[in-house]
């Protein structure tokens, strides 16, 4: 009858023992969170696994066994240098996650600080920071990477810095917007009235209150970073051989599109799974951490 009367028996077996009120209780009932979490875990697990074990050494070139179809020895076959596709995919997850984490950390540390400062100081400081973030918007990751590559040469560091810079303005704007909303609330007014300074208010009241929004956005930014890393490696501006990377694999595969088209399918699917997983995870977290943000679903 009423919602209250529905018994725990209706819940799936796996979640029956978790009360719906706890975070994990709700999380495990949330479809996109579960699916996104599973896909993201898959990618992380692949990266971790590749540190200790891969079916073949990922960088080992064996021209004699090049372009082999899937077999018991090479589950997804080999590429034009005879490298094992499964091993390359597993090791590629490592580069992807490494670049993603560092780039998002750069974006978060600069973006959040700038946003918090803009929100706390207002006036000219805010104006300058926001104009600065406006024009950083004019440099998508590929453009910054091109500039850096033209000067310092391509490589993983180039791509990390370029992607990091590209993350900053989005996070600055989001932080400032959410922080401004917190600054307008009564409890901040009360804190100001009791003589607390802007720094203490930011640390004690503003940051904790926008943390969930930032966590959600960081997940989404991670997905964007993976896409950018893949594009840069594909263009040859990012991760360099022999370091395996999914974007690089796609570039190699493209030259062989007519001979072995399937080579182009796996790395792209890996990228898509990683990005889809993180996006779903972000959506799920948004629903779970802040119901006010999730009116749409």
């Amino acid at each position: 009858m009423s919602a209250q009367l529905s018994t725990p028996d209706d819940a799936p077996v796996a979640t029956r023992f978790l009360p719906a009120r706890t975070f994990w209780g709700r999380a495990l009932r949330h479809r996109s969170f579960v699916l996104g979490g599973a896909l993201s875990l898959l990618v992380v697990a692949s990266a971790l696994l590749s540190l200790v074990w891969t079916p073949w050494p990922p960088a080992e070139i064996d021209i004699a066994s090049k372009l082999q179809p899937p077999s018991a020895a090479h589950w997804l076959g080999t590429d034009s240098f005879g490298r094992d596709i499964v091993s390359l995919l597993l090791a590629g997850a490592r580069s992807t996650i490494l670049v993603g984490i560092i780039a998002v950390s750069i974006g978060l540390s600069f973006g959040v600080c700038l946003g918090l400062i803009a929100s706390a100081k207002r006036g000219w400081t805010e104006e300058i920071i926001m104009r600065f973030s406006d024009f950083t918007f004019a440099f998508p990751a590929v453009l910054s990477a091109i500039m850096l590559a033209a000067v310092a040469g391509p490589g993983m560091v180039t791509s990390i810095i370029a992607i990091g810079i590209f993350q900053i303005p989005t996070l600055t704007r989001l932080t400032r917007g959410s922080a401004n909303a917190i600054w307008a609330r009564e409890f901040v007014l009360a804190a100001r009235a009791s003589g607390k300074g802007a720094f203490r208010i930011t640390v004690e009241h503003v940051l904790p209150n926008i943390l969930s929004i930032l966590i959600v956005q960081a997940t989404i930014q991670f997905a964007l970073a993976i896409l950018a890393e893949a594009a840069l490696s594909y263009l040859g501006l990012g991760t360099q051989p022999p370091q395996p990377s999914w974007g690089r694999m796609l570039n190699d595969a493209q030259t062989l599109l007519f001979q072995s088209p399937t080579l182009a399918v796996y790395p792209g699917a890996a990228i898509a799974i990683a990005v889809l997983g993180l996006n779903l995870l972000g959506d799920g977290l948004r629903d779970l951490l802040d119901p006010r943000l999730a009116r749409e679903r």
Partner: protein
Amino acid sequence: MADPATMPLIEVDNLGVRLNTSRGPAQAVRDVSFALKRGETLGLVGESGCGKSVTALSLMGLLPDSAIVTGSVRLDGRQLARLPDADYCKLRGNRISMIFQEPMTALNPMHTIGHQVAEPLRRHKKYSAAQARREAIALLDRVGLPDPARRVDAYPHQFSGGQRQRVTIAMALACEPDLLIADEPTTALDVTIQGQILDLIADLVEERGMSMILISHDLGVIAENVQRMMVMYGGTVVESGPTDEVFRRMGHPYTQGLFRARPKLGARKGTRLKTISGTVPELADLPMGCTFADRCPLVIDECRTALPPMVDVGPGHVVRCIRTDVSMAANVGALPA
């Protein structure tokens, strides 16, 4: 067929509305019946969440798709309940109009007020743009908007709340409807403006011979503006009758509670405002018997067994209570006999 002069304009019989709420399905309105003749005015009073607005929206056919409407709503004898939306569109804004509570958000910020007032005219009366604009200016003039010929091209954000409510009134009246539904038309306005807007509505109702259903949580507004009134609680009508009759002899403990709970001018400083204890029941979770039982000072076991029937207590005055003998002995009312 009955004589059109005496036949009711709108006749609601045993109306019920089931809504899907976030807490599960809820019987938001049940067993609501009334009839209204041309030129008559009816007030609906009750706390928020008692089903007043749902009743009004079901008359307008504007409930969400998932809502299930039972019973009958007849306009000049024609069945409106469960009418297809395309047919309802021909009536809305044409024969039945509605004024909403929030003038600040009820107008589209992107269109000029002239455009918005002219819209029903263009749609229902097929006026040309120029004709509709002339008529819109005349309407805006009638509702007391200053300098309408110039301000017809202004946007909603350029007006005050009271002025915007005048615009929505002009919009509702554009096609000279037979029935006007005013849902808390003054609640969102400054106290000083409220009286002006209510007077304007009363004048227009009188002038055009419309029927009106006025919805309010404020007994004072109801007392001064309508001929008959219905008190709603928990999705159903608990008391109904001619306004002065109900105010003279309040029959339902809930009506009495509402009356006692209103703030009085000139009350001695420090007097506590009387309140009704408890809270409005969740519509998703209504009790079996009288919906007011949990808050009623006169409750007995019998009240909880079944929804009480309507009891006649005076000319046209009915009360949904089995304890009227006790409740009416207290003789609560504003107008002594």
